[in-house]
């Protein structure tokens, strides 16, 4: 990591909330970044500037404000394309989040392409947003839903994917790029190549990957890729679905309404061009505009630097957490295969008790099933605690976490 391009002190100055005091005047230690990240002034100011100076609906009126906001909105689309090495910005569709992006594919693509007896494959470590839409689709179509299991390390058993693909019935594989609970980074290149060879479509949920590492979609060459702005310093209510143009052109729309039409008559309608065909209604203009500043912020730090920073923090945290009495750590040990997410449990202590106790020290982590109940079942636990790091996380904050966890061990006499 180049020290001159990565000044933690400078970065933290851009995030007002990190100065918060919480509970009994404790310094906030925010380690719930896999749920959502904090926002820098650059993003907050862009949103506020839009409402103060440019607010207008987009794509329609010819007045000055409409032109300004349309341009700003479309600049974010270009920025997303540049950031992920997408050749054609028209392939970037704005949604309200990863969940809506996946539901868009399940509904619009699934409606026309999945039939009785077909197989959709997902994995045991998916978020509910990459399981439930496929349950709804397969139930509706009398198709089958199959799972790639995970091994004791928390890695996917890819040989099961081979078996499913060998049936010739797999229409789509839906897999997360990085697990939101275990932090495992899926071998996505291998999965994409297996799917291509078998003629199956591949959707990747990148909600936990795009914020934390360099992602090149031209190189990855999957069919669908989804992620959210709010997990990468951007506002809530903005997500992206990227899909190849030829697939998007074939697909019927997801929702009908304004902006997605070319001509509407009493009984028939023709569709607008991409990407508008999939963006019915007035979008979340202000937040899409703010999202551009979030991407620029990450680009300024450099995605490789962010990855290195998180690796270093994860290594430091794992080494220290291992020594806390009564703790069980989940996930792969190999730092090349995991992101900055650490799930853990204490013997018989319920995660909500852990969360409540360390909250008193100002430490914010997530306790619960993390919208991954299939994985909880596999791990044979009701819930876990999860600490997750980001660009502004410091080793000193991890020290606070550790001493707070030691106090949990003390309270529960572990």
């Amino acid at each position, binding site marked *: 990591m180049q020290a001159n391009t990565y000044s933690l002190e400078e970065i933290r100055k851009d995030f007002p909330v990190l100065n918060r005091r919480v509970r009994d005047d404790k310094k906030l230690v925010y380690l719930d970044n896999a749920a959502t990240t904090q926002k820098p002034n650059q993003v907050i100011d862009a949103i506020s500037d839009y409402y103060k100076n440019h607010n207008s609906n987009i794509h329609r009126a010819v007045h000055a404000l409409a032109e300004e906001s349309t341009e700003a909105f479309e600049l974010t689309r270009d920025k997303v394309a540049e950031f992920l090495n997408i050749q054609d910005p028209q392939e970037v569709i704005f949604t309200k989040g990863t969940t809506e992006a996946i539901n868009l594919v399940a509904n619009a693509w699934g409606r026309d392409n999945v039939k009785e007896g077909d197989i959709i494959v997902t994995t045991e470590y998916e978020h509910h947003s990459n399981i439930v839409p496929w349950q709804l689709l397969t139930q509706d179509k009398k198709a089958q839903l199959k799972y790639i299991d995970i091994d004791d390390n928390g890695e996917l058993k890819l040989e099961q994917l081979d078996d499913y693909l060998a049936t010739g019935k797999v229409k789509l594989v839906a897999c997360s790029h990085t697990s939101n609970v275990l932090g495992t980074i899926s071998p996505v290149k291998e999965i994409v190549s297996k799917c291509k060879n078998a003629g199956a479509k591949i959707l990747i949920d990148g909600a936990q990957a795009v914020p934390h590492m360099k992602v090149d979609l031209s190189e990855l060459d999957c069919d669908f890729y989804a992620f959210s702005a709010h997990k990468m310093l951007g506002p809530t209510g903005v997500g992206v679905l990227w899909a190849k143009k030829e697939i998007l052109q074939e697909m019927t729309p997801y929702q009908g309404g304004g902006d997605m039409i070319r001509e509407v008559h009493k009984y028939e309608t023709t569709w607008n061009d991409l990407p508008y065909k999939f963006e019915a209604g007035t979008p979340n203009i202000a937040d899409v505009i703010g999202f551009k500043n979030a991407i620029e912020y990450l680009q300024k730090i450099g995605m490789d630097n962010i990855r290195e920073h998180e690796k270093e923090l994860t290594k430091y945290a794992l080494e220290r957490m291992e020594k806390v009495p009564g703790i069980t750590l989940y996930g792969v040990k190999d730092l090349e295969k995991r992101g900055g997410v650490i799930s853990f449990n204490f013997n018989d202590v319920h995660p909500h008790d852990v969360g409540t*106790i360390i909250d008193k020290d100002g430490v914010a982590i997530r306790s*619960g099933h993390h919208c991954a109940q299939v994985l909880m079942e596999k791990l044979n636990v009701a819930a876990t605690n999860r600490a997750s790091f980001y660009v502004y996380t410091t080793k000193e904050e991890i020290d606070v976490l550790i001493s707070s966890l030691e106090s949990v061990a003390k309270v529960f006499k572990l």
Partner: protein
Amino acid sequence: MSGDPIYTEMIIEYSRNPSNYGKIDDAHIHRHDSNPLCGDSIDLYLNIDDNKISDVKFDGSGCAICMACSSVLTEMIKGKSLDEVKKFEKDELLSELGLEHLIKTSPVRIKCALLSLKTLKYGIYSYFVDKMKDSESAGNLNEEAANLY
């Protein structure tokens, strides 16, 4: 962490060794409930003889607060008449464990503390309505349960 307002010795002790933990086969009242957001999940079993709670047990999984409150609730209602139990208020349960402050300080954790009481109220309501066909005695216990937290 001495003086912790939630995790007192008593709560930790109850969470480790819950009272009346287990199942009653063919119980007169059996009710399951859970808090979907935090995942606390319990089953409550009651036997009624002479309009009194002759036996009560619970099982399930949950945090220390949920386990401790379920334990104390079962201890408090055992042997009581149904009329007494119908009038049971949440404050009685919370004060027994020194958790009254949760109502104000932790809207999230109050759900853990009151899950067992909610389950009890629903259980007794359906006992009167479904088993005894006596909706008058059931009163508005179901509404009380729904509005408990």
